[in-house]
């Protein structure tokens, strides 16, 4: 079972890697900021798989922390983008 779970973690990681290539290339900054978002979800999956594969329950706590903070990069980005010209990000 451990081997299968590790293999799955590897697969998810590879998928994340491919997605990362696409996102980081842009074109817009908003595309790029999806990278931490992608890694958030993918990273949580990888960590949970690893936790189960290696029987290390503490690793779930790492995944928990990542999940808790997963939206931070996006939020920080949007707020920072919005602040030099107030309301800019809010106009439709």
């Amino acid at each position, binding site marked *: 079972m451990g081997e299968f779970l*590790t293999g799955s973690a*590897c697969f998810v990681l590879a998928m994340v890697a491919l997605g*990362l290539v696409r996102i980081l290339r842009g074109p817009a900054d908003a595309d790029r900021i999806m*990278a931490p978002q992608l890694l958030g979800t993918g*990273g949580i999956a990888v*960590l949970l798989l690893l936790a189960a594969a290696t029987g290390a329950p503490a690793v779930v706590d790492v995944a928990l922390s990542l999940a*808790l903070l997963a939206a931070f990069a996006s939020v920080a980005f949007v*707020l920072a983008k919005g602040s*030099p010209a107030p309301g800019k990000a809010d106009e439709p």
Partner: protein
Amino acid sequence: MSAALILDACLVLLVLAVAVWTIAARETFPAIAGFVSYGLLLAIVWVRLSSVDVALTEAAIGGGATGVLLLGAAARLTDRAGRRPAGIGLRIMAGALCLAITAALAFVILTLPDPAPTLAPQAVAGLPATGVGNPITAVLVAYRGIDTLLEKIVLLLAVIGVWCLTPDDSWGALPAPWGTARQDDAIVLLARLLAPVGVVVGVYIVWVGADDPGGAFQGGTILAAMWLLVMMAGLIAPLPATSRRLRRVLVAGPALFLAVAFAGFAMSGDFLSYPPAYAKWLIKLIEAALTLSIAAMVGVLVIGPAVRKR
């Protein structure tokens, strides 16, 4: 070749690729997006290196604090690199130098002594005297507590340094790190829902740190992240540098740590030693106070100083 090794190889390649992207990207923002991803990947690397405590730290710092800090700066600083990149001669020379250093490092790492020297047995042997079960916590608070104490002073000095960058006419003003734009209600909702959950998780991470991976810094950073989130949502205002309450919270952890350290002289004969009977509870008390201070420090470092009045 086992699945684990393939995973490691993938991870290493991915980390290096993201690092190359971060250095090579022409524009600043993509580089920083790459860097935040790099931080998240490192958290997985730490798990693979059996350092779950470090992984937690990296997740909290890389996923929360550093990301907010750098993304905020990158989105605001509109500077672009000049048309003329660093001279090609400099780049070649720097490249050769860095290549040489990498090669030397690689060689050293591959030829490190086998079996590796380790302090693990000694660290484990000392655990009963500290009353904690997580050897890393024992290292941080007992064996090498002085490092942790001085590190808190470093953090405090960083806070002072950041405050020092307040323009004189704004001293005492509220920092407004995220402008005054109308708040996005998705962010507000996230803050309202997540912050209390984050409080529970943060305290939990500190609490388990005594015996399992976790600890004051990891938990404190999560609490700081929640504080930041609530401020980002505009639900509470940041505290000014002149706030006495804030300063006392900043100082509380290091001060208690120092007081216990000096009390060690009287109680068990040595600075920063714990009487075995109370060691466990003293350490937990210190961790609790440090958590609050760390949360405040990390928060203040990310918020930054008040900006110039216009």
